[in-house]
């Protein structure tokens, strides 16, 4: 059994819904469907979680929610070793690039195509092994810089996200309401 740590920023109403009914998978994201968490419980992950919330607030994503304040949720992700696939391995990057070329997709694929390419690669592997990966790791873009001014992008590069494809492995360990 392996345990990973993840952090998620959202509004208070959404956090209440999550605590009540659990996380729901998003159909799209840079690495395909899943629940996305910033890696870790440290200050860097918190900066990203808050930045993501601020960005969505600016985008009026929470306008229909009753409680629009910030909540940061800390989770543990428990899985067996063979249920995890690291898409950041250079060999996986090589494969997705070759897949792009083989499929005749442009040199600069759009976000949707990036998600579809990763999704196809993962699904094909899953079909081969007869098992679903419950968690993936992939570097994802940060929220726009103005929302994460303290994230050291030049030092760390794009942050790693955990993409959880089976919500049953998510354990919420802490939820913090933060005033900003």
């Amino acid at each position, binding site marked *: 059994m392996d345990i990973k740590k993840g952090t998620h920023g959202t509004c208070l109403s959404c956090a209440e819904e999550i605590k009540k009914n659990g996380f729901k998978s*998003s159909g799209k994201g840079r690495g395909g469907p899943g629940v996305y968490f910033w890696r870790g419980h440290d200050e860097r992950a918190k900066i990203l979680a808050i930045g993501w919330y601020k960005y969505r607030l600016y985008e009026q994503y929470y306008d229909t929610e009753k409680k629009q304040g910030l909540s940061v949720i800390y989770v543990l992700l428990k899985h067996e070793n063979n249920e995890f696939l690291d898409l950041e391995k250079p060999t996986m990057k090589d494969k997705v690039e070759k*897949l792009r070329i083989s499929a005749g997709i442009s040199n600069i694929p759009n976000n949707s195509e990036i998600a579809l390419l990763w999704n196809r690669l993962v699904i094909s592997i899953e*079909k081969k092994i007869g098992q*679903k990966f419950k968690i993936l790791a992939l570097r994802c873009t940060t929220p726009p810089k103005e929302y994460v001014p303290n994230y050291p992008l030049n030092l760390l590069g794009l942050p790693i996200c955990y993409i959880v494809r089976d919500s049953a492995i998510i354990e919420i360990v802490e939820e913090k309401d933060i005033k900003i």
Partner: protein
Amino acid sequence: MKKIFAKEQNLDSVIEDAFNELISLPQAELKNLIYHPENEDVAELILASNMLGVGEVENATYACSYVEYEPSQTLKDFSMFTIGKDDFTGYSAFTELTKIVITSTPNLIGLDLPSGFGELESFLKHYAQNNYPKPGLPELLSSEERLYFSCLKDQGNYQWIKEAHISVV
């Protein structure tokens, strides 16, 4: 997904095999697989369509697929579906629209519908009553939108066990 992956198998070599099979496909087929993953497995489509009301409705075709976590399970093992609409921005956004409680398979005879979803609600009620799709759902979805079905083992246990989606293709 008929095989169970054994820990002692070399994952890297399996990944390599899967990848080589994938890129050996003709480009048109590969593109179709990438852009329309829901069309991949006809058998899954049929099984899912039996349960979820998927099929041809007027000029639109609903495609549906699901991910099977345990090969021994089928959709009949599940007693409730949650249907939600994805906002396609990623990062855990999922708006739950309704639940379908299955009290007897294969017919869907129990529904727990929130108000305010108009045609979708009508569609689902009609489906529940007649076990057959009704024209109307295509207007609810643009070509880029999908409705997601999550299949839950029982109403009290909100475990994300299976996932299916339906889309206008």
